[in-house]
């Protein structure tokens, strides 16, 4: 039985262009890119070509603004810890709905004397720019607000947030975790107004274990991984050339086909929600009143336990998600829904469906009908 895959936000299907690029890199650019010989030069050339293209796609001022990492979590860690350690200031401002890679990293700095200040969100998961600005003061080392929320899909007004921060203090670095947004939103330094941007390749069809952090010129970050001094001393470790090349191939395709993605995926997502609401009017689309990523559908099914629904969906061949899974795989209560004002009970009745580049026409309404059949049984 092949699953209807509606968990593209957890990870999406690898794009053939990324796989091809990786295979080519493993065949012809697999040397250690830091060496002085011909094979090393070939690897280094492939790497730097990828860096130039990534910088161009993201509108970075120069290729060296792109720091390659082993994924989105590392990019977030480098942004938060790196910028904090490089600052004399001791306060980190974050939104309450950031990914754990941001929240836990900021919290981990408490032992070094840093304080985390959290800005709340409304019922749609939206951050108000003025609320962020109001928290910025002479001790603010960094502001971190995600470009779009990974659970609800709410698109944050990151440019307005950046502007609000700069009105108070133009020297405060601004980080945005664009891991979930990049696949469908045109994320650039200019569009976000951010100095630091995190991406993870596997969220948009690249390989796992590869990501990047844009460090816009002039922003100081201290390294968190020490060693051979790669990435201009900002991230040591032998270059994962094939992974990086695969990521950038996927970035290129995402950028070139984003309009098509938005219309096709958006159509299926909208059909899914329309069908669902027609058959089950009590369902609530979370975040519907705010700008949302086209691929996200986060639904509250009153009276239906998400844990049970997810298992029933899996049995029926539909892959979906709720909250975040802990190490054992149990569904944990979502900090995002709590921040949005959901009770524990309500939070436990929400399921996330996310569509992706492999979603086919008709899949949205078909999936909704299958979800409806199960929800009716569970009521």
């Amino acid at each position, binding site marked *: 039985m092949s699953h209807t895959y509606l968990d593209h936000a957890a990870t999406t299907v690898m794009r053939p262009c990324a796989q091809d690029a990786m295979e080519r890199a493993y065949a012809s650019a697999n040397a250690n890119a830091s060496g002085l010989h011909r094979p090393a030069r070939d690897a280094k050339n492939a790497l730097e070509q990828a860096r130039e293209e990534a910088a161009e796609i993201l509108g970075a001022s120069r290729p060296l603004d792109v720091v390659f990492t082993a994924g989105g979590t590392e990019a977030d860690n480098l942004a938060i810890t790196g910028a904090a350690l490089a600052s004399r200031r001791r306060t980190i401002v974050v939104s309450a709905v950031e990914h754990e890679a941001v929240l836990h990293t900021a919290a981990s700095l408490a032992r070094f004397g840093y304080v985390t200040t959290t800005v709340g969100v409304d019922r749609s998961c939206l951050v108000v720019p003025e609320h962020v600005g109001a928290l910025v003061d002479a001790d603010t080392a960094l502001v971190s607000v995600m470009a779009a929320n990974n659970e609800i899909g709410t698109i944050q007004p990151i440019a307005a947030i950046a502007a609000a921060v700069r009105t108070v203090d133009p020297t405060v670095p601004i980080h945005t975790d664009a891991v979930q947004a990049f696949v469908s939103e045109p994320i650039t330094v200019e569009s976000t107004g951010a100095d630091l941007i995190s991406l993870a390749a596997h969220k948009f069809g690249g390989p796992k274990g590869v990501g990047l952090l844009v460090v816009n010129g002039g922003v100081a970050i201290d390294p968190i991984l020490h060693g051979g001094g790669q990435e201009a001393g900002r991230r040591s470790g032998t270059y994962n050339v094939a992974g990086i090349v695969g990521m950038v191939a996927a970035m290129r395709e995402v950028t070139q086909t984003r309009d098509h993605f938005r219309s096709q995926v958006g159509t299926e997502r909208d059909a899914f929600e329309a069908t669902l609401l027609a058959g089950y009017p009590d369902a609530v689309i979370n975040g519907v009143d705010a700008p949302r990523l086209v691929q996200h559908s986060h639904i509250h099914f009153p009276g239906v336990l998400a844990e*049970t629904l997810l*298992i029933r969906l899996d049995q029926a061949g539909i892959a979906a998600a709720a909250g975040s899974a*802990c190490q054992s*795989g149990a569904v*944990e209560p979502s900090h995002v829904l709590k921040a949005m004002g959901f009770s524990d009970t309500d939070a436990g009745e929400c399921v996330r469906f996310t569509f992706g580049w492999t979603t086919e026409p008709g899949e949205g309404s078909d999936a909704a009908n299958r979800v409806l059949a199960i929800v009716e049984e569970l009521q």
Partner: protein
Amino acid sequence: MKALVAMSGGVDSSVAAALMLDQGYDVIGVTLKQWEDPDGSMPVAGCCTLSDAEDARRVAAQLDIPYYVLDYVEEFTAAVVEPFAQGYLDGLTPNPCIECNRNVRFDALLDRTSALGCDVLVTGHHARIAETDGVFRLRRAVDNTKDQSYVLHMLDQQALSKVKLPIGEMTKSKVRDRARALGLRTAEKPDSQDICFVTSGDYRDFLRATHPEVAAPGDVLNSEGDIVGKHPGTAGYTIGQRKGLGVAVGEPRYVLDIEPRERTITIGTYEDLLVSECVVTDMRFVHLAPAVGDDVSVKVRYRSEPVEATITQAGTAAGDQWRFAFREPQVRPAPGQTLVMYEGEYVLGGGTIVDERRHVGTR
């Protein structure tokens, strides 16, 4: 037909899942996450640990059945962990595994069984269920040394009609043979004895950490109430304990009573420890309740042989007291533990032992 198999990560439930497949069922494996460390992770030592869940997951993958971890931390904490500590402070010796079966596992899982689209709930317990003319009976396991019917005494007709215990029909060595033949990674895994939320392996450490008063020193009393010594903390003692009393007297002394709130323990002779009857509350029955005058076999500890007793007082409502007269005097059962009634190999029901002298735990 679809079976929900509660998989602990041990050999018994692993083989139970395999047996249900053999019987032609579609099988779903689940593990209950019942306890977590303060950071939300599963415990790494004790029973029901992360590695147990991983074992269950790998066995499920080997059997090619879906597997899920269900979050029961809130229910378990409220129904088992907190009453365990409170019961202990009340001078009881609670049995958390039985409380879990009574209040979390079976109730919660039976509810889930139908919600998850399953027809039967399967566990790896060593006990048997027999049906005659629509009446379900709970019977001791084929393997007498592994029998767990004691901890299942709370299963009533409705529960028994939906539960299957395929392991109860096999000896433990046959279960392991079967696991080996299937190449299951749990084939040689030792049996777990620990209380799952006690990660250090010693429930006393758990009590000391959560309720420091049980680690505070206090007086040792004799049965007349005179102070005869000091003890380092009540958590170190259980009723009937002989060693480690720190009191030098001629003949052996045993712990007769523990009063955690008063920080006292009372000691006495073996004869002081013997009682002729036992009072029980919160009785549950497999089918019909026995009556006053009935002779039954009773087990007042998990690991002891049944002894003969006569029912001298019977209740009608759930909170009523029942009284059992032992044929021979018995070492005083610890209040908070469970009395289970048997008729031959069959379980009739059981309840929680109360301390009639202090009326703790009665309603």
